[in-house]
């Protein structure tokens, strides 16, 4: 059994384990963290396949951005009040566990990369091009139309989100920062010239 195959089984084991934990853990925060583990393991497997750009994007986009957002949402929804307030110590073992596994995976990955003897032939490698160049070229030539369509789908997402959440309430008092800034000195203080009151009781002309 080659070291590469060994690494694959290692990552695959944790990917499946993470996926199982996502659906079996009671605490949603733990479930999200397990999903992070799954993504991380999958990224490592992609790395083994020499799709290094995609693997990094998976970590940066999914683990770095999407899952953190997800974590925020899960915490904001306050699904399990008691469990969510148990404190830092309670999560620490899980956090350390996930971190340790990720570290082990990374170390293993780097080790595997160092020991690569015969890289598997793939179109990207055989073309003598870097992964990023190859993906970029494919996206903007052959896959131009789907690429643009995907952009339109994102637009639909924004329109849908605005349509479903924006409420135009009339009569709501709110500050208009632009008008506040644009105000001029004589708008702030209105000087009114009033005739001084003359003395005397009712002796007006």
């Amino acid at each position, binding site marked *: 059994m080659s070291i590469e195959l060994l690494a694959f089984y290692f990552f695959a084991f944790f990917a499946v384990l993470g996926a199982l934990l996502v659906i079996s853990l009671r605490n949603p925060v733990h479930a999200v963290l397990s999903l992070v583990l799954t993504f991380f393991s999958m990224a490592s497997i992609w790395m083994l396949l020499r799709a290094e750009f995609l693997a990094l994007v998976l970590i940066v986009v999914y683990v770095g951005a999407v899952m953190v957002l997800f974590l925020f949402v899960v915490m904001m929804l306050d699904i399990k009040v008691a469990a969510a307030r148990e404190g830092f110590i309670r999560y620490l073992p899980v956090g350390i566990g996930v971190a340790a596994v990720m570290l082990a995976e990374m170390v293993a990955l780097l080790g595997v990369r160092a020991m690569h003897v015969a890289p598997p032939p793939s179109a990207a490698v055989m073309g003598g091009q870097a992964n990023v160049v190859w993906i970029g070229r494919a996206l903007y*030539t*052959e*896959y*131009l*139309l*789907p690429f643009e*369509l*995907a952009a*339109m*789908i994102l*637009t*639909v*997402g924004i*329109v*849908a989100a*605005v*349509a*479903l959440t924006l409420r135009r309430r009339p009569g709501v008092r709110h500050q208009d920062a632009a008008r506040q800034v644009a105000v001029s000195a004589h708008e702030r203080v209105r000087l009114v010239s009033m005739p001084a009151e003359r003395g005397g009781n009712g002796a007006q002309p």
Partner: protein
Amino acid sequence: MSWNDLINVLPELYLTGSICVLLLFDAFAGARYRNAMHWLSMLVLIVTALLVVAAQRVGPATAFSGMYINDALAGLLKLFSILAVALVFVFASPYLRMRKLAAGEFHTLALFALLGIMMLVSAGNLVMIYLGLEMLTLSSYALVALDRDSPRATEAAMKYFVLGAMASGLLLYGMSMIYGATGTLSLAGIGATLPMSPHYMLAVFGVVFVLAGIAFKFGAAPFHMWLPDVYEGSPTAVTLFVASAPKLAAVGMALRLLDLGLHPLFPYWQDMLAVLAVASLAIGSLVAIVQSNLKRMLAYSTIGHMGYLLIGLCAGTSFGAAASVFYAIAYVLMSTAAFGVILALARTGFEADQIEDLRGLNQRSPWLAGLMALAMFSLAGVPPLFGFWAKLLVLQAAIQANLLWLAIVGAVAAIISLFYYLRVVKVMYFDSPAEDRTLIATSDASLRWVLSLNALALLALGVFQGPLLDWCLRGITG
């Protein structure tokens, strides 16, 4: 990319640009010019339709390295989708005004969905199929949830979203299997490499999931659970949309995937489709009987109709495929007519969505009752209406393909379903109107005229069905 590519996708390009302009217009001036969104959207639809016709003259061709197919089938489905969306806009306009629903977003999202449909029926690649489908469904989820203050609409949207996301996942999983077996995402390439592929069984495995995704899109049993809730829960204007153009997209997607890409696996998917068809026919015709909500009843009738549509696909011949396309067009025109009558009767605080609500409609508004009766008879498949020819053609295709048993099941289901369609007619004509509720037909002139034209088209296309059938056959055979 060349000029030729751009000319082929000109209708979609124009539609995309117009949607962006409409979006900006609605954001900055929509509140001031109330009806402008409606008329501008109609203008966009008309120009898009003209461009589709113009693009047909340069076809049949593929563009963007096989991603986009511009052929007669795509043109046919696009034109009828545009027609369906135009009907939706006309029928929905008074309803949206009364309910104070976000009319601007309704138009924009429906046009986005139309863009998804047009991309989907022109897709020459698995990626395009998936993206077109996502564009269509994402817009549909938002449309269903548009009435934010209605808990039922929100629930329907949630169900639709969760089940739809799962169906997309299944479809994508199946596509990845097929890609694994053939090593290509292009549908033509899949069709060419599949017979020689050493991973033949992997592709068969993938077909199961792809079919599940297609069946969900159709609303065919046993993937129909979302359909009644979505039809009942969403605002009627949105129900009308969900019941119309997306069905054309579904038939386009099925033909592209099954006929173009997975035809080497025909014996496998034929059996699976037959099971789906029989289940849909059974559920569609039996469960609809016990419904008291008209929209829900029409939802179950949709499931039944999708069963007939699948019978046509099951046949696997070009005649069967043409019959399916014909059926989809017939279904869309029938359902716009039926939902159009509901929309014409709805007013503030009264949805007219119970069958009982139609009691004695004939005494209040004989013309609307007549239109509804026409729609119901056509849905039931009474000769010489449009629906009859559609049913006849798919059953004929099944018999030609030696699927006599399937044709018999279809005929039996048609007879059972006659019961609940006729019940609506009976309620309208033979029951006395309820005293406490008064049915008032809409005074909106364009709705009345277009609805009449739509219902009368069911009769006209029933009598002169030849040209449309020829057009469908030309679309399939190229």
